[in-house]
């Protein structure tokens, strides 16, 4: 008799939970529906979806690590001009690794574009922004990767590279900057090689 009551209580609690899910869904806030990013799931048998983080870790001491923050950070962590352009193009979430080694800062930014937005439009928009800011086009290893570079000029001492490309719902940025041109070239080439080998544009 006791066992029947225990089982009955369990069944009733389970029915309550199932009923709540049936009525209210699984708890996604409808106000956030505009912020949803659907990450493609290539193999549902994997214990975790590796595409949730499509950036490698740059070498050196990490000065920024928002890569594993679950909801990411808002685009407002980027400079105002970029944040505006990217938000208009549909970027809702930013995850980044920025590391510093040997005077060179290297960064990888994964900017998620919401469902309904077009990552390629974000790519064009950010590339146009950099072009307008005086960054020159640099040789690119891949047609789908847009690379811009900056050399020291005027009062500005830094050399830098910014590469952008699209992978699934993400706009990914590879960057390297510092005051030593040769080291920046090397660091950028290595980092871009690693990142594009593991997470090529798609």
């Amino acid at each position, binding site marked *: 008799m006791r066992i029947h009551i225990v089982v009955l209580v369990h069944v009733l609690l389970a029915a309550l939970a199932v009923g709540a899910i049936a009525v209210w869904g699984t708890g996604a806030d409808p106000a956030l529906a505009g912020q949803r990013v659907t990450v493609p799931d290539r193999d*549902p*048998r*994997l*214990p*975790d979806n590796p595409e949730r983080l499509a950036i490698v870790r740059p070498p050196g001491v990490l000065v920024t690590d928002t890569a594993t923050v679950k909801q990411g950070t808002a685009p407002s962590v980027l400079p105002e001009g970029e944040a505006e352009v990217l938000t208009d193009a549909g970027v809702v979430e930013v995850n980044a690794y920025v590391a510093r080694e040997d005077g060179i800062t290297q960064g990888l930014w994964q900017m998620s574009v919401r469902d309904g937005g077009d990552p390629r439009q974000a790519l064009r928009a950010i590339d146009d922004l950099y072009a307008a800011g005086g960054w020159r086009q640099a040789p690119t290893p891949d047609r789908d990767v847009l690379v811009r570079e900056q050399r020291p000029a005027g009062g500005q001492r830094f050399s830098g590279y910014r590469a952008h490309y699209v992978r699934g719902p993400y706009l990914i940025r590879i960057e390297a900057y510092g005051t030593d041109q040769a080291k920046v070239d090397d660091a950028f080439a290595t980092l871009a090689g690693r990142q594009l080998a593991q997470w090529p544009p798609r």
Partner: protein
Amino acid sequence: MTADIRTVPVTLLRAGAALLGAYGYVLGLWLARHGLNPEPVATVREWVNRPLGLGEDFGPLAVMLLLAATGYAIGGRRPVRLVLTAVPALVATACVCFFVYHDMARLLEFLPLVLIGLVTRWTLGGTLPTWAGVLLGAACFGAVIAADDALPGLRRWWYPVAATFAALLFLVAVRPGPTATAVAAHPVTRGLALVAEVPLLVGSALALVVVP
């Protein structure tokens, strides 16, 4: 008829391995080879497999449970019957590694579970002092992690997580209470325990026949 308390864990674990093996290596494998992800399986993959970190629809967990039960069983046997008891499970595991994964090195990730079963049996039986049993068990677990690190391409399948679950479930099963003993005495459970290697063999045959 009272069941011998030492066979209860083996029966429970083998029955669990049979169920999970059928789900993972027969149903799951067939669906994966056809690239399908239909509804009840899709929900289980998203709400059970992913949160727990168990991949391949519990397939490797089933193998590990079976091997832990085998290790536990052979701990009480004399050498001749030991081989007879262990051979079916080992052959089934080898078939899975060869036909499903095309990678015999994966045996190195599964076999330490046999040792964990064996060491636990000896520790509980008093043959091994507790401290030695714990150390050896931890060493076996370390072997699983080392194999996972050494073999390329396995990192994303999280086999050590499956090994953790297998070890924990095994350690719970070796001290069965009255309910567990009653479940183990049930004919369905005993039937499942008898055929625990069959889903692995069927899965291996499937893997041969159904090419993606």
